[in-house]
């Protein structure tokens, strides 16, 4: 597995984790606030683990990879860049689509010939099982809400863009939708820049400090 592929994974998890954490304190009700914040936190934990693997290959470290690259160097899918507070239906639509896509990707990584990658995928998958359960219960609850349906339609081309071309048919099967033109990774949306500004603010305040 190339460092570039590791960075794609890590960037997806970092940005999604960050976006989901924007609900901390303002989720629809207290129990959900705790649960969704916790999911955000584990996504960022997964990002850290993938960055560490990538850092070994690139001779860097996880923090530099996460925070010190130029905006154009980030490899995340546009799906995870979108700012979605305060639209809960849309947030859950992304969460559910992403978890479905991520499950397919992890399945492939579990069979990786790189033992470090396969081992890490196995650990991450155990936590992702909770994310998938959480996403599925919300999807079931919101499935018939028109607003949720609109969000799924809007985000579907973005969700396909999370996966490589050969993995996309599996996602179509999993969520029972037809394949459309995907919105590919690497093309960033406007939301990315202000997000990066915020994410790197503290780190930029004292360059070279250790925390």
């Amino acid at each position, binding site marked *: 597995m190339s460092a570039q592929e590791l960075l794609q994974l890590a960037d997806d998890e970092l940005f999604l984790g960050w976006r989901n954490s924007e609900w901390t304190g303002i989720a*629809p009700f*207290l*129990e959900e606030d*705790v*649960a969704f914040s916790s999911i955000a936190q584990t996504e960022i934990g997964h990002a850290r683990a993938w960055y560490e693997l990538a850092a070994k290959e690139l001779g860097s470290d996880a923090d530099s990879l996460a925070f010190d690259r130029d905006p154009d160097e980030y490899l995340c899918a546009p799906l995870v860049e979108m700012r979605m507070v305060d639209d809960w*239906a849309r947030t859950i639509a992304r969460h559910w689509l992403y978890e479905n896509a991520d499950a397919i990707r992890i399945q492939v990584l579990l069979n990786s010939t790189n033992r470090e990658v396969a081992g890490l995928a196995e650990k991450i998958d155990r936590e992702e099982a*909770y994310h998938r359960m959480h996403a599925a*219960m919300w999807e079931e609850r*919101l499935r018939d809400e028109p607003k949720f349906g609109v969000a799924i339609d809007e985000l579907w081309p973005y969700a396909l863009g999370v996966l490589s071309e050969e993995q996309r048919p599996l996602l179509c099967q999993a969520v029972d939708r037809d394949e459309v033109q995907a919105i590919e990774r690497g093309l960033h949306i406007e939301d990315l820049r202000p997000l990066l500004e915020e994410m790197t603010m503290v780190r930029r305040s004292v360059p070279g400090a250790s925390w």
Partner: protein
Amino acid sequence: MGATRGVGRRSVIYEVFRQEREGQAFQHGGSLEAPNFVFAKAYAREFYGRRGESFALWIVPRESVEEVREPYVADVFDRDYRRVDGYSLKAKLKEARERAGTSPAR
């Protein structure tokens, strides 16, 4: 957030009991509010299980718990010999240990 407007209105309070290790008695952990049992299970796992602190959970709708108020029998006569409190096993054990010259098993 129209899609979630119904969540709070129809929610149920659940009491959660935790079993720390297999075979131990369940103890009350706390309560949570959720729109249905599926959500309650997910939240209970999040709050009481995900750090490996529980072996099993009981998740019970509060409505299903029968509460009885005590005292059931008024304590009108002075019959404290019938009471089981006031007998300190701890003190007895301590004495016995001192006699035997052993320390508590930890």
